[in-house]
């Protein structure tokens, strides 16, 4: 087990710096470390702790940057200035907000179930932070290259539904319970198209590992798998509860949903978890569909990755700035009547293509770039008619009879004075 974890170079670098001497490190050119032999477990623990702190801090910084960026971009969309007081271009506003949140009074409602109420933020934030561990943010820069990375991400994020349900139920607040019910219905429904849309990618890469997925993308999968990308993107929006699927905390309906009764740092943690989920979701989209850290050589891989993540986040913010929210029944029917069918079409087409071209290439990958381009052509040919058809199917019905059509009456008011002095 430890061998697979050691394979990721980030972990190896830190581990060998601390432990040195051991077998795996010597073969990679490391010499002495700080610790004597026999204390590998301590080195292991130190490495894990260091990386965990590093990644959590990274995630936190990403979240603060995202909050600031979102506020600035939203302001730009809305003809406003946005936060511009604290720090250059207001970039320290999120920090100030975080500090303010920490100093607020921690309130637990009288009727709340204290155990669940306190536990919910933890359950909410831990899975999201665990996702960051398997995402390669540059060549070899990841904590653990799990051989089941993609499945791990889907599985671990599904726990957030339980956390929302816990937060909602323990608040003993009926509006929060609505949020919990919605969250459960929404998350359980969207997990299915989300997992199925990744299955198409899986057929092409033949691996669940994140690194393997990136290495297989001689052509970014957004081109090879347009349907898969569309469905995964929408499902990810739903899982992150972003517009237009932000029903769990629909501001105009539920105020803040399950967050209603939280205050101080518990609120901060729940809030952090949601925004971290957005960052993580954008990272996964960038990894799986935008070929992760791959790019042209003069620019380092980390910059490529960050650039792609920022592009995805911008798209998400753009959607938030412009789209209204869907209703719960529409959200669910979109999942079951729209996205599910689209993934099925995608799966069938991809399966046929994969079967037709399944032969291992010389470099060990399943498909060459040329074959990926053929796949892309076929998939795009399928993409437009299927999206059009499903869209037609789901579109709101026009008014049934002609009489419902709007009309404008032309006659001048004085010529057709039907009522005489109604007010007298």
């Amino acid at each position, binding site marked *: *087990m430890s061998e697979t974890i050691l394979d990721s170079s980030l972990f190896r670098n830190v581990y060998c710096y601390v432990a040195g001497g051991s077998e795996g490190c010597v073969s990679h050119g490391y010499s002495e470390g700080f610790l004597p032999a026999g204390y590998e477990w301590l080195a292991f623990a130190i490495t894990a702790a260091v990386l965990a702190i590093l990644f959590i801090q990274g995630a936190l910084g990403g979240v603060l940057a995202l909050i600031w960026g979102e506020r600035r971009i939203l302001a730009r969309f809305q003809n406003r200035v946005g936060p511009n007081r604290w720090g250059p271009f207001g970039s320290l506003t999120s920090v100030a907000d975080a500090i303010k949140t920490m100093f607020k009074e921690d309130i637990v409602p009288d009727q709340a*179930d204290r155990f669940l109420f306190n536990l919910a933020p933890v359950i909410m934030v831990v899975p999201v932070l665990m996702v960051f561990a398997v995402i390669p943010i540059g060549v070899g820069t990841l904590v653990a290259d799990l051989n089941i990375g993609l499945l791990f991400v889907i599985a671990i994020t*599904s726990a957030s539904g339980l956390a929302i349900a816990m937060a909602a139920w323990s608040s003993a607040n009926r509006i929060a319970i609505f949020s919990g019910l919605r969250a459960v219905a929404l998350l359980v429904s969207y997990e299915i198209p989300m997992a199925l849309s990744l299955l198409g990618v899986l057929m092409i890469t033949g691996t669940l590992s994140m690194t393997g997925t990136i290495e297989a993308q001689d052509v970014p999968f957004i081109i090879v798998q347009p349907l898969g990308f569309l469905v995964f993107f929408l499902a990810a929006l739903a899982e992150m509860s972003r517009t237009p699927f932000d029903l769990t905390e629909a501001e105009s309906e539920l105020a803040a949903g399950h967050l209603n009764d939280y205050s101080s740092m518990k609120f901060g943690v729940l809030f952090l978890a949601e925004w971290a989920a957005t960052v993580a979701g954008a990272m996964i989209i960038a990894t799986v569909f935008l070929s992760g850290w791959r790019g042209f050589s003069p620019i380092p891989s980390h910059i490529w990755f960050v650039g792609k993540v920022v592009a995805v986040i911008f798209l998400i913010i753009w959607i938030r700035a412009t789209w209204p929210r869907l209703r719960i*029944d529409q959200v669910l029917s979109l999942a*079951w009547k729209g996205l599910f069918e689209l993934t099925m079409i995608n799966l069938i087409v991809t399966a046929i293509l994969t079967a037709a071209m399944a032969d291992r290439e010389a470099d060990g990958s399943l498909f060459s770039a040329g074959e990926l381009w053929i796949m892309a052509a076929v998939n795009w040919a399928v993409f437009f008619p299927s999206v059009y058809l499903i869209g037609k199917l789901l579109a709101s019905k026009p008014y049934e009879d002609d009489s419902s059509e709007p009309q404008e009456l032309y006659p001048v008011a004085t010529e057709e004075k039907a009522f005489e002095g109604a007010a007298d």
Partner: protein
Amino acid sequence: MNEAFEVPTVVSFAFWVASAITIAAAIMVVTVRDVFKAAVFLAGSFIGVSAIFFLLNAEFVGVVQILVYVGAVSILIAFSVMMISDVSHGSQPSRARYASVTVSALVLAAIAVTVYNTEWTLNSGLTDPDAIAGLSGTFIEDEIASGEGRVRDASGIQASDSQVVQTGVLGDSTGTVGALLVREFVLPFETVGLVIVAALIGGLALMRPREGEPDPRGGG
């Protein structure tokens, strides 16, 4: 005993921790009165079981456990508790509590006696180096397509271009489980698919609007 199947102390320790969490959570599930809390403890128990799966080199099963049980089953149970406020007031244990404890204890005793009195054929008793490599080392397979090819220990051999060095099935179980599911066990696999479809239709049939009830707007 051979070293390949020896369990490291760290893993052993982690197993006991995971087991303790699982059992404690399971006890809470059957004793706590608040059904919603029971559902949360159930999720905790599921996570503990999935940790045990990870420690038993069954990553795929562990992830499926989280995905299905934590992500769907326990959430659906919590959903039901929220919808049916009848249960939220708490569920009393029935009067048959002592009888239940007795029965359970007897079953546990029977299991324990059986487990400790059986002479298990263990992996650690294996001597064939090829078999050990196939399970937990790295191996090379002669004819990959048919599955009948001979397995050879890859640790001493320089693999040629046509040969693929594979990780032992216990080291990297995901691919093998997938292959097994659609080859040897395709019939049970399809049957399970049928069962799920049947459950889906059954659930819909149970929940469909009855005669005279107002038709709900929209899908869902």
